[in-house]
């Protein structure tokens, strides 16, 4: 067998995506979408900025800042334990494989619609992500200082004096970058009822009030686009205190403790086991009878659809990124063109995939296609942006070619390994995101989670969410192996690590 190389790996992914396309449900069925699209266009051209609810913007920032801060704080000790305990690694995988939206749907059962749900829905999955990334940063750090420590230095001191100074800078950059993701996640939480920008955005979109929606989105783009200006190490304390003070207050009563007890001891306990005699075979027979149709009718087809959708979106993302990256490279676009390209890519990556998919649903009709395109655009813009930064960081010969020749014979081949590393890294992310598109009527795992929650069957929802965790973990392992086999393990995979 031939060794895996960049070329045949790419071909393998391309072929698998083509195979998926033949079985995917991608029929175009909309008959007359243009009326709605015209209204959309008219709205986008005349954004109504007066309608923007200022508090929803404030709360979006506040939830993101507090959520990311708690996530980073909890992630750090986990990161230190990460290489030593398999249990910690497993916990981190579970925490981060569950989408924020699913976390929020579960947390609402305990904390209700309120600040605690919003903050924890960000903090919990982000703690898992921070644990992994901080652990990677620590592992990659230069250990020279540790070697000269006197014998008998405690682990804590060794970490604080020999390792932390090495890695603190990268922790900082990464945490601040993560705030951008936090803002996007917080927006999405609005779709299920938290009072962020997404709350109003979803309502406006549903009602076809596109002028209001466009204004709100524009404000959100500015928020993301200027993140480097307002979220700096020096402003973090102010941001944190202000966010804590400004978080919306909880509305309504109910005891979180009582809800938690009910949720754990009743709601998520599989229905046949509730109050059943756990020693009796009949109970477990009933349990098997309960589990089997869930596995057969929901988990398996849901996981299959999730993977098919993700595979096509992954290759779509790669293709789009290759096309887009020159737009954000100064070498290709020059001093004037590059900022314009940057703006375009900020807009592409900050538009929530869910919104994109909803517009495309009107345009193309219900199928996997809107979800595929939405994932492609969002993730393609992210990878394209990163590649563009790498393209400018390369050393070019004085007589380097220009234009298409530069692109095809110089930049792209030299960046190809980096390109594959990004793609493989985002594979798992795409799988996790495609799970939630079920809410649009694509029968991914998320579709069945949505159904289970509508029927208030949280026991079924938990089984399905655990299935998404398993699928994500599987892809994560596969991606890691591939990166190792392709000798890409040492390349940058995170946004915060791309050259400035």
């Amino acid at each position: 067998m031939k060794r895996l190389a960049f070329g045949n790996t790419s071909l393998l992914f391309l072929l698998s995506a083509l195979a998926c396309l033949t079985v995917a449900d991608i029929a175009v069925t909309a008959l007359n979408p243009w009326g709605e699209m015209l209204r959309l266009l008219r709205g986008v051209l005349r954004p109504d900025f007066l309608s923007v609810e200022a508090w929803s913007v404030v709360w979006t920032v506040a939830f993101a800042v507090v959520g990311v801060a708690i996530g980073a704080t909890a992630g750090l000790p986990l990161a230190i334990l990460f290489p030593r305990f398999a249990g910690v690694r497993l916990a981190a995988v579970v925490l981060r494989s569950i989408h924020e939206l699913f976390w929020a749907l579960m947390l609402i059962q305990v904390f209700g619609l309120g600040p605690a749900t919003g903050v924890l829905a960000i903090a919990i999955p982000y703690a898992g992500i921070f644990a992994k990334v901080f652990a990677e940063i620590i592992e990659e750090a230069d250990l020279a200082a540790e070697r000269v420590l006197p014998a008998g230095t405690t682990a804590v001191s060794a970490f604080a004096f020999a390792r932390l100074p090495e890695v603190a800078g990268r922790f900082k950059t990464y945490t601040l970058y993560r705030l951008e993701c936090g803002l996007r996640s917080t927006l999405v939480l609005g779709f299920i009822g938290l009072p962020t920008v997404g709350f109003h955005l979803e309502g406006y979109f549903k009602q076809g009030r596109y002028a209001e929606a466009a204004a709100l989105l524009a404000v959100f783009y500015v928020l993301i686009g200027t993140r480097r200006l307002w979220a700096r190490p020096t402003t973090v304390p102010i941001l944190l205190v202000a966010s804590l003070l400004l978080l919306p207050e909880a509305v309504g009563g109910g005891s979180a403790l009582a809800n938690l007890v009910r949720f754990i001891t009743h709601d998520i306990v599989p229905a046949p086991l509730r109050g059943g005699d756990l020693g009796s075979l009949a109970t477990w027979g009933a349990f098997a009878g309960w589990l089997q149709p869930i596995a057969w009718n929901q988990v398996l087809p849901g996981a299959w659809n999730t993977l098919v959708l993700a595979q096509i979106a992954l290759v779509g993302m790669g293709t789009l990124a290759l096309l887009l990256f020159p737009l954000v490279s100064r070498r290709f676009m020059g001093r004037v063109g590059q900022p314009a390209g940057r703006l375009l890519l900020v807009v592409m990556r900050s538009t929530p995939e869910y919104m994109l998919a909803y517009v495309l649903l009107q345009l193309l009709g219900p199928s996997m296609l809107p979800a595929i395109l939405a994932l492609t655009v969002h993730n393609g813009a992210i990878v394209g942006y990163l590649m563009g930064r790498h393209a400018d960081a390369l050393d070019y010969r004085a007589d380097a070619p220009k234009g298409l020749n530069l692109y095809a014979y110089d930049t792209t081949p030299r960046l190809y390994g980096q390109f594959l590393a990004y793609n493989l890294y985002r594979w798992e992310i795409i799988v996790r995101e495609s799970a939630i598109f079920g809410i649009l009527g694509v029968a991914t795992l998320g579709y069945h989670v949505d159904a289970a929650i509508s029927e208030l069957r949280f026991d079924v929802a938990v089984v399905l969410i655990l299935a998404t965790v398993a699928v994500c973990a599987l892809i994560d392992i596969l991606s890691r192996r591939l990166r190792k086999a392709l000798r890409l393990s040492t390349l940058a995979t995170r946004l915060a690590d791309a050259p400035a």
Partner: protein
Amino acid sequence: MLTTVKRSILALAAMSALTAGYALAQQATLVFTAIPDEDETRLVERFTQYAKYFEGKLGVPVKYLPVKSYPAAVTAFTNNQVQFAWFGGLTGVQARLAVPGSQALAQGEEDQQFKSYFIAHVSTGLKLSQEFPKGIEGKTFTFGARASTSGRLFPEHFIRQAMGKDPEKVFARIGYSGDHSRTIQLVQSGAYQVGVLNHLVWEQEVKSGKVDTKAVSVIWETPTYPDYHWVARGDIDTSFGSGFMGRLQAAILAVDDPKLLAIFDRKRFIPANNDDYKVIEDVGKVTGLIN
């Protein structure tokens, strides 16, 4: 290291602030919600008028909690985040099953005899008929919200009765639009060929000129069934004083301001009790939506 320490202290502060927020929220504010079944952009504005009305009648602070989905309304009720709510038939039953002792208090006059409209895109060639339109077989079809009574439960029941099989087997594709207004939008654009929704929302949107009746029209009216109603938690008297549930019911029944009634698109509210919704529980069990 310092920033980390600072960060953990602030995180702790955050947690305690959140907990304190919860403790404060325990004081007796009466909170209610309503399922978001149509145009939700003005819900807060509209229901705040009801909060004021109830405050005047009941003498306790009243707040409205906006939610984004039907199950979120039920969850808020189950969690005691809200003490009473305007539910659809199915969500009301779900809520009462989750909180034993809860009571249906009142319904709109129209809710005793509620019905759904099946609507179709003009390109399907389907026309208004008296009988169940069997021609919808093989088309793409959208329900409303998954837990909607008029957008899902009864339509699904009638489809099963007429066609003798699951909706999944009747249609080429099934979607859940999320609410009644969106169902109209999706069928009107042709994204789905056929859909079903609450008859009041259809009539209201046609009246306000939001529907292109050349592109989409009603093809069948379902038989009637009971639907929307107000439900209160069984422990509302323990939290707000004995006899509170009765006072709340009286306050709802006494709504006579046309502006307030227009918010629900109802003529008036009439008393309701749990038995009125027995049929929903039965149909819910048959369709597998309720355990």
